């Protein structure tokens, strides 16, 4: 215990020394204002406000909004008043924010000794636009197949390795009469909701968004991806047809679902008995081939308008570096905030293996090779993705049935979008 405290104090002191050396004196002259979405890791930071105050000379303040509202508000706010020093942004809107110059390149103001390179390669990739890093990751990852070990064992099955095996397994395990379902899919609208899951099929079947600046998504790959996704909804739990992450994870963690393909941070919740009734019963592996896992990342970026001068940007950069430092990631690990661990040095540490076991760690490492950026990296992506999200929700819920008509409509919209740039 004494030794642990000694090391913690030593590590804390060393981090402070690094920041102090890079800062020298008072770095911030006013409170750092952050527009964010609720994350346990950010709440945890609030317990260490004094540490940041000592380091920078100022405090910080979070305004939280849930994901969809945060996206809507941050876009409107950054385009108009721009009063936030730091924005919580994500892979889907980094291009829009960077191209609109609402944020500035991060590494110009990120202390070099905090080691940005330590972040997972996939997360650094989605945090960048045109090769320039714009945010430091707070959460991110790829996809995993989560399956109920007990259910598969009782059915004499092994985790599916291909899409065909996956569909056959869902058909076998789906038993609505007993309130048990094969899977839970995201049906609710949004580039980060139903479209996010659909894209893994689209990419698996060879789909591409644009070729030489022209829409290329209206293709056989999109048709096949949509048909497959709609077919799988036969085995999806009720409530997911218009639901997203929350409905899917609630259905799985409440024990009503056999297997799901979802983003990797869910593993932390699933293994937490306070949040999940299936803790200890879940197996983790890579999604069935040829699905291409959706690499994603959310993080903190420096606002351009509120930080008009270099000093203010340096202050925001210091806050982001502190908030995403190795020391704070180790605190998250200690608190069991699995989804918000992004540094390779922490993921590969003995403490991580001890806390989460070898299976999750090896599944994470293995899935990295099947993970890619599936969306169209462009400032117009949220607009195009959300438009497809609505059409896809209409198809899923049966308010329209013509897949080709939907794709034609999306293509016409895409042409309008690119014509105005």
């Amino acid at each position, binding site marked *: 215990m004494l030794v642990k405290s000694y090391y913690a104090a030593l590590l804390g002191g060393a981090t402070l020394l690094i920041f102090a050396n890079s800062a020298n004196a008072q770095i911030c002259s006013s409170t750092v204002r952050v527009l964010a979405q609720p994350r346990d890791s950010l709440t945890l930071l609030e317990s260490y406000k004094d540490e940041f105050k000592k380091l920078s000379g100022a405090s910080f303040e979070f305004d939280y909004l849930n994901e969809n509202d945060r996206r809507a508000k941050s876009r409107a706010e950054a*385009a*108009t008043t721009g009063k936030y020093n730091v924005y919580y942004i994500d892979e889907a809107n980094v291009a829009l924010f960077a191209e609109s110059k609402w944020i500035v390149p991060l590494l110009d103001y990120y202390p070099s000794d905090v080691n940005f390179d330590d972040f997972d390669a996939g997360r650094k990739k989605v945090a960048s636009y045109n090769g320039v890093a714009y945010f430091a990751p707070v959460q991110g990852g790829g996809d995993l197949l989560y399956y109920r070990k007990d259910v598969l064992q009782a059915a004499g099955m092994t985790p599916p390795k291909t899409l065909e095996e996956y569909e056959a397994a869902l058909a076998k395990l789906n038993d609505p009469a007993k309130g048990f379902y094969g899977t839970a899919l995201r*049906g609710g609208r949004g580039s980060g909701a139903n479209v996010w899951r659909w894209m893994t099929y689209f990419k698996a079947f060879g789909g591409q968004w644009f070729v030489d600046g022209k829409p290329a998504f209206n293709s056989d790959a999109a048709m096949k991806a949509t048909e497959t996704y709609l077919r799988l909804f036969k085995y999806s739990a009720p409530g997911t047809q218009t639901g997203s992450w929350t409905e899917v994870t609630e259905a799985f963690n409440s024990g009503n679902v056999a297997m799901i393909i979802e983003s990797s941070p869910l593993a932390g919740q699933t293994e937490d008995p306070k949040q999940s009734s299936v803790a200890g019963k879940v197996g983790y592996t890579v999604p069935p081939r040829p699905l291409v896992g959706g690499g994603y990342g959310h993080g903190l970026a420096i606002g351009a308008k509120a930080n008009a001068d270099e000093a203010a940007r340096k202050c925001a950069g210091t806050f982001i570096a502190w908030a995403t430092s190795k020391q704070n990631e180790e605190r998250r690990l200690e608190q069991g905030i699995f989804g918000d661990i992004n540094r390779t040095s922490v993921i590969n540490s003995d403490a991580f293996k001890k806390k989460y076991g070898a299976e999750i760690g090896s599944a994470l490492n293995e899935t990295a090779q099947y993970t890619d950026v599936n969306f169209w990296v462009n400032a117009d992506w949220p607009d195009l993705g959300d*438009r497809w999200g*609505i059409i896809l929700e209409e198809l899923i819920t049966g308010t329209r049935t013509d897949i080709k008509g939907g794709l034609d409509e999306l293509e016409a919209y895409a042409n309008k979008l690119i014509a105005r740039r």
Partner: protein
Amino acid sequence: MKRKTSLPAVFLIPPLIVLAILAFVPTIAAVNIALQNRELSFPNSSYVWLSNFIDLFGDRRFINAIWISVIWEVVTVTATMLVAVLLAIFLFERASPRMQNLISILFIIPVMLPRVSAAFVWKFMFNPLFGLINYPIKLLTGAPIDFLSLPATALASVAVVDVWQWGLFFSVIILKLLQTLPPQPFEAARLDNAKTWEVHFYIGIPMLGAPLISLVFVKMVESLRAFDLIYVMTRGGPGIATETLDMYAFSQGFVEAGKISYASSMAVLMMVATIIAFTVLWKWVRKWQ
């Protein structure tokens, strides 16, 4: 006759100026933005005049949103008034004065709940896996009904929440109005062997004509502002089955596209349509009275 004092003008002009500023400045700003091509992700904009309005009439989601808004308005206003009148008559006829007071307190509680809280509570109750409403349905049929995801039931399910809040509240108001009516016409009708429904249909409701019409107008205005309820419960889904005009305008302005000029043009059209509809209805009601 010459006026002796300028006091009315002194008191009236300042608030009228404030009201004029509050009413006209946002309206003029909205019209001005609607005539441009402003988007949040573009720093510059220019005047495109009526282009946004022309585009709207070729937009299937806008046409759909008009229909959904009209259906929402008709269904919620009619259902609220029917529930309110029937409940008020039932309480007036059957409950003791003490019970009437107690139930009145209970009926006021739903409308005092913030709309967002009410929407969350009902959304959870409609949940097909864990919801209270689905519990007996699962027992009886073996399968839950996903009320908020089915195109046939989604709008009606949201309307239930609206009617639950306002129908109960209005029933208390109508009950209190019934209590203020002179008892003699009711007694006379009963002496002539009129049935209960006849007493209220031919005497009670006509006597409450003016306040009931006021309640209808209040509910019409309130139903136009159902954005929060729909946003929390369905976000306009499934697909666009519950997407009203204000939902679609918000979605275009802030959620999906950042097209604030396009969204403003919808807001301007809504304002014009509302003014025309309310003026026609008002004149029609006055003539009818």
